[in-house]
């Protein structure tokens, strides 16, 4: 589907000061998400439910409410990302953004967040995003085929998950004598 409105691309490609509007939205989302996760009772609840929903239930947390809130927030942010993507491309398709799923998971895991959730931080995702963006630019400048890029992304993801699993399995805090 082609978007006919001429100002539709403003959302994805328009500039405010020296940064695209989508960049400002990105920064704002990271800051808001970071504060929500690390400083609010909702963020603590989300970490707890994803870390162990049964333990959270036994601790008296409203697990279903926290789950619903999380899906609501993630759904809203996914919609926002879709709107930006559509605006940047100028077209909208039902299967648009499929490759973004692997890309976004790679950013999250590469930054050091747990694959199954429950621990991590927003700043880690920012670092993961920077690494992935740098790699992506490098691949583009080297004119590497898109399919090969996807394979490399998958390999990087597997390596990051393996490293994460190894680090978590060997790290034990010694107790007092």
């Amino acid at each position, binding site marked *: 589907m082609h978007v006919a409105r001429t100002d539709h691309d403003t959302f994805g490609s328009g500039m405010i000061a020296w940064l695209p509007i989508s960049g400002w939205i990105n920064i704002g989302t990271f800051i808001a998400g970071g504060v929500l996760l690390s400083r609010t009772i909702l963020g603590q609840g989300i970490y*707890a439910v994803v870390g*162990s929903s049964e333990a959270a239930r*036994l601790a*008296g947390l409203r697990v279903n409410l926290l789950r619903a809130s999380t899906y609501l927030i993630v759904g809203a942010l996914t919609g926002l990302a879709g709107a930006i993507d559509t605006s940047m491309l100028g077209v909208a398709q039902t299967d648009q953004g499929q490759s973004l799923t692997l890309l976004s998971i790679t950013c999250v895991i590469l930054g050091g967040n747990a694959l199954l959730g429950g621990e991590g931080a927003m700043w880690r995702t920012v670092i993961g995003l920077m690494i992935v963006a740098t790699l992506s630019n490098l691949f583009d400048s080297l004119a590497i085929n898109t399919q090969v890029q996807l394979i490399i992304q998958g390999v990087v993801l597997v390596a990051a998950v393996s490293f994460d699993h190894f680090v*978590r399995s060997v*790290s034990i*805090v010694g*107790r007092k004598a």
Partner: protein
Amino acid sequence: MVDESHPGDDALIEARDLQRHFGGIAALRGASLVVRTGTIHALVGENGARKSTALGAIAGRLHIDTGSITIAGRDATRMTPLDTQAIGLAANYHQLTIIPGMTACADVFLSYTPVQTGFVKSSTMRARYRALCARVGVSIPPEARAGNLWVADRQMLEIMRAVESGARIILFDESTSSLVQAERDTLFRLMRELRANGVTMVLVSHNLNEVLAISDEITVFRNGRTVRIAPAAEWTRETLLAAMLGQAAPDLMASRRAAKRAAGDARPVIRIDRAADCGASRPTMGAARLVGRRL
């Protein structure tokens, strides 16, 4: 032979005729538990006696098929952990409920996080955490990842969570199982302090000596049924064992004495020489038995 001569009118928890099936297996088969206000009530029984199932039902972790549970005069038969918490009950479950990915400090305050307009008051939380650590005699760094702590430290975090909750009823389900003697002593000191402040506690433990030393009343479960409820003064280690196992205590003691006599003549069943040379970097040996049973 359920002795219900001691429940009294000041019962804070009354669980009557609890029945619960897991699939086709009958777990609780009419068990009852009556806990008086301001007492430490021990619940003992063999493994599989369904002590934890009964505590889980009282705390709202699971629901019973039939029977009734009343806490502080309120029907708690169908309550959830959130509901029982709201009426002042905190539970330490046998299976630890520490969230591994959270910090020790956040885990302790998970249910009672100090907040101001939705934001966590981190400095207040850390100050209270340090005070709590000093009170229970542990030194777990507040920012340590809970999942990286040893089991005993995680158990202490659970105990700290229950103490910090300010609950008027606390259920300790084998909370001493991973603790060393000094930590057990600290916990018992804490329990006595809490009792003096009017807190009612239920303790599940396999250590009969500590049960006899700390509790005011003791209930014995066997195969999902209540065998007897009586004041601690009316129990001895032998009568407790006999009630738990369904055998006369003198027989048990005789078999133990016979085993001790035989031990002098017996040849070793297992012998390990030069364990350090067996190839493993940290050789470990374990032996276990059911309390009251011969190995």
